């Protein structure tokens, strides 16, 4: 291989860096609108899933408008804040603020049978990165109607199992409260007892993700405690 001068090496690397940078920023800018749209659709799709309405890329928008009829934001005292739009609230950002300044979005929906449902977003940490999802509760503000979870980087076959139907289907019917006391849902290693209304089975090989999910449910839903108790019927 022939020897190159230092001058050549400098020019070569500068040109390479400029070409690559241009290419990548071009790709990022051109693709961004589509990527953001995907994220928005994904969010709507997850919410629909938590109330048991499956949707595809094409139908998400319409179904969302049909089933999810109201959304608002609560502050830490459980009062409605009018100035903030619920769909735009990013929980990850909220959780970094002090509790008194956090906004907590609530989405109201109707199930296919006409039951009034409340959808609460949750956000936590798994093994490798964030885990998140939506929990829908029935009008008694206690019984779970459905859940959907997702993650960005949990291991396929292990922690990533949190977004499978077999895991999510254990949640409906479980209770968040014991009388007036918030107890949340436990993710129990070795399997929850069949009559346990506050527990589901953990995922084998996904212990840290399971623990993270349990903590996520506890930490996020307890913030709605006042609101849930007040709006029981």
């Amino acid at each position, binding site marked *: 291989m022939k020897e190159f001068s230092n001058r050549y*090496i400098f020019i070569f690397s500068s040109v390479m860096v400029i070409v690559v940078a241009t290419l990548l920023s071009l790709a990022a800018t051109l*693709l961004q609108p589509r990527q953001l749209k995907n994220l928005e659709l994904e969010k709507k799709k997850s919410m629909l899933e938590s109330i048991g309405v499956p949707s595809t890329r094409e139908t998400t928008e319409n179904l969302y408008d049909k089933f999810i009829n109201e959304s608002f934001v609560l502050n830490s005292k459980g009062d409605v804040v009018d100035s903030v739009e619920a769909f735009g609230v990013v929980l990850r950002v909220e959780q970094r603020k002090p509790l008194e300044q956090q906004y907590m979005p609530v989405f109201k929906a109707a199930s296919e049978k006409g039951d009034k449902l409340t959808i609460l977003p949750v956000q936590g940490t798994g093994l490798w990165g964030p885990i998140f999802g939506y929990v829908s509760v029935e009008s008694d503000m206690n019984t779970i109607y459905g859940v959907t979870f997702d993650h960005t980087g949990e291991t396929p076959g*292990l922690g990533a199992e949190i977004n499978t139907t077999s895991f999510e289907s254990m949640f409906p019917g479980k209770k968040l409260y014991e009388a007036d006391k918030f107890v949340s849902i436990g993710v129990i290693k070795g399997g929850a007892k069949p009559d346990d209304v506050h527990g589901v089975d953990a995922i084998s090989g996904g212990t840290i993700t399971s623990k993270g999910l349990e903590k996520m449910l506890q930490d996020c839903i307890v913030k709605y405690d006042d609101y849930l108790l007040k709006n029981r019927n």
Partner: protein
Amino acid sequence: MFSARNLKLLTGPIGKDNPITIQVLGICSALAVTAKLEPAIVMALSVTMVIAVSNVVVAAMRKFIPDRIRIIVQLVVIATMVILVDQFLKAYAFDVSKQLSVFVGLIITNCIIMGRLEAFAMANKPWPAFIDGLGNGAGYGIILIVVAFFREFLGSGTIFGYPVMEKLGLYSIGYENNGMMILPPMALIIVGLIIWYQRSKDKTLIENK
């Protein structure tokens, strides 16, 4: 175009010159993505594409790449390809990109790709380099898929998510999934078994003491 030499570039890595079982490269991702068949297949395809294209790019530039910074140049080429793939998946195949999540980014660190660029593309023309990339991607992919098949089948009792064991009615007679199979160490053991099998079939692969 498809001379005997070129064909050998394609078939060699699938068998006697396999990047995983013979050169023992790319083991890390073989452990990570093989708990299920589907991500294993998408990963195999993505890696094949990245090797083939980076091989061509580096082979085309090989006469202009200064020797002293060649590793950096190779890395930049690979990283650019991977980021482009990732961005396109996010925009046009959102579900696939969600499933692969971090593993797409990890293709950058796949030793097989660097190995092929350094060992082959730097000294060959683009066309053979392209074939070499396809061959090595295929060799890597086949092992990934075999490992993923056994891990998903024995560990979760499913194939492509279809509950085979349940349909066969094995659970009702007391069969249980082997939880060990879904843990990463079992991937290493399965790769070990494949290496053992391959060497027992082909004695020329065994090193002389």
